[in-house]
């Protein structure tokens, strides 16, 4: 569990900003920080990772104090058990893909972790290439794999997919979600993409001007959860099939599967596995006693 309560005065082009973030993340949770650029999302991750010292407050992770101003504790980033994926990937240009991953190994650590991650992230073909020759999506996969080598408890992702096209995004979201589940991570993502947030995260925090202004489950925070439609559920897309000129989307809601007719404009950004909100006006359903 991450318990974070930090204050920091940040200087920017627009003058100074008071950052005050209070956040509790349960172990195994996937949360997203959402909000305008300059709201303090990256600074929050940097303080959690130890790359930026807070002015006041404390950070406790799984019972270990990482930072406490009062007790003058400030754990070095290298001793915090985190994986950090930077927006610019920050791969080491002088090392090959394999060497980038091996660099992250601890002295006593078994090299099989690297092989395992190369296989999971499908990097076999790229292992002897230097980062300069890789595409954005490939670099992203390497950065994610490298961040996982030390088997961190906490994974921090700073807008990792913002530079990629939508097909590549979909695929990498899958990798991130698999890694999150497989390694039992507590993950904090920064993202602007609402579809991505709904797909990946359990909870979303909206930041504005250095403060958390709203928080909640993604479907409630965005889109249909907020409509006037009274008949609404969240579910997972199981199947999308074209029938005639429309599409039939099968959605699992709880233990039931429902079918919804959708237009091509609605299914173009959907794929099986996506989390969706299904809504209808309260005027349509019929009720029968059973």
């Amino acid at each position, binding site marked *: 569990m991450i318990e974070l309560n930090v204050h920091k005065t940040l200087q920017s082009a627009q003058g100074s900003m008071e950052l005050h973030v209070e956040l509790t993340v349960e172990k195994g949770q996937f949360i997203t920080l959402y909000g305008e650029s300059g709201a303090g999302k990256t600074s929050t991750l940097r303080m959690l*990772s*130890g*790359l930026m010292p807070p002015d006041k407050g404390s950070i406790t992770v799984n019972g270990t104090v990482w930072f406490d101003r009062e007790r003058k504790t400030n754990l*070095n*980033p*290298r*001793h*915090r058990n*985190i*994986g*950090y994926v*930077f*927006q*610019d990937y*920050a*791969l*080491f*240009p*002088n090392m090959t893909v394999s060497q980038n991953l091996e*660099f*992250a190994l*601890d002295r006593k650590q078994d090299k099989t972790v690297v092989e395992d991650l190369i296989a999971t992230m499908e990097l076999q073909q790229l292992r002897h290439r230097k980062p300069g020759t890789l595409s954005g999506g490939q670099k992203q996969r390497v950065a994610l794999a*490298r*961040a996982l*080598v*030390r088997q961190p408890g906490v994974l921090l992702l700073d807008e990792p997919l913002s530079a990629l096209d939508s097909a590549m995004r979909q695929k990498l979201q899958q990798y991130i979600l698999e890694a999150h589940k497989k390694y039992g991570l507590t993950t904090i993502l920064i993202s602007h993409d609402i579809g991505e947030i709904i797909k990946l995260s359990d909870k979303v925090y909206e930041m504005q001007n250095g403060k958390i202004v709203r928080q909640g489950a993604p479907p409630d925070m965005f889109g249909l959860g907020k409509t006037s439609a009274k008949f609404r559920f969240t579910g997972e897309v199981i199947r999308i099939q074209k029938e005639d000129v429309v599409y039939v989307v099968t959605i699992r809601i709880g233990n039931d599967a429902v079918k919804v007719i959708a237009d091509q404009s609605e299914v173009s950004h959907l794929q099986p596995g996506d989390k969706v909100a299904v809504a209808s006006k309260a005027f349509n359903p019929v009720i029968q006693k059973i």
Partner: protein
Amino acid sequence: MEWGPIILTLKLAAATTAILFVLAVPLAYWLSRTTSRIKPVVEALVSMPLVLPPTVLGFYMLLAFSPQNAFGDWLDKWLGIQLVFSFAGLVLASVLYSLPFMVHPIQSGLSSLPNTLSEASYTLGKSKWTTLRKVLLPNIRPSLLTGIVLSFAHTMGEFGVVLMIGGNIPGKTRVASIAIYDEVEALNYGAANGYSLILLALSFITLLVVYLINGGYLKRFTV
């Protein structure tokens, strides 16, 4: 013409460059990171040899290290070091004189690397020292090479400092540039020409190597 001065010149340049490299890496690293208020002062001091006549530097070093002076006397008596008219003194003077040529390329190389490279390394559990050695320095190889070659070439060509602090002692402080001056004074144009040609060729070759490597010409053949 004798080979002594040429060999002495190369020895001086090699020793100076080696010492400079060891000194300049931490100094450049500090300059590229620090937000300290004394940074401009240090930067100005490092850059001084660029604008100062070498004779000024040589003059003050001569004064400071002269055995007639309290500091020079102390060095001589307690440590047995004589810096005036000695090879050690020449190396020290050359290190100071060529300092900006080593520090500047390394500093600008380090500054040009994105901060996230070192931050990524820290979050991967590595120390600052490991990060510098394994991540930062290997990624500024062209800057390191430029620093090394420029310092070497610049030391080969120095004259004023050497003349002031080293004098013209064969085998000890008589480097090629002094020898040229000496031979011209003696109207020995043939010998002066010999030294000059060798210095000219050495300077050209070292600079050519830098541009070949940094221009990527060598990479095409080595990849």
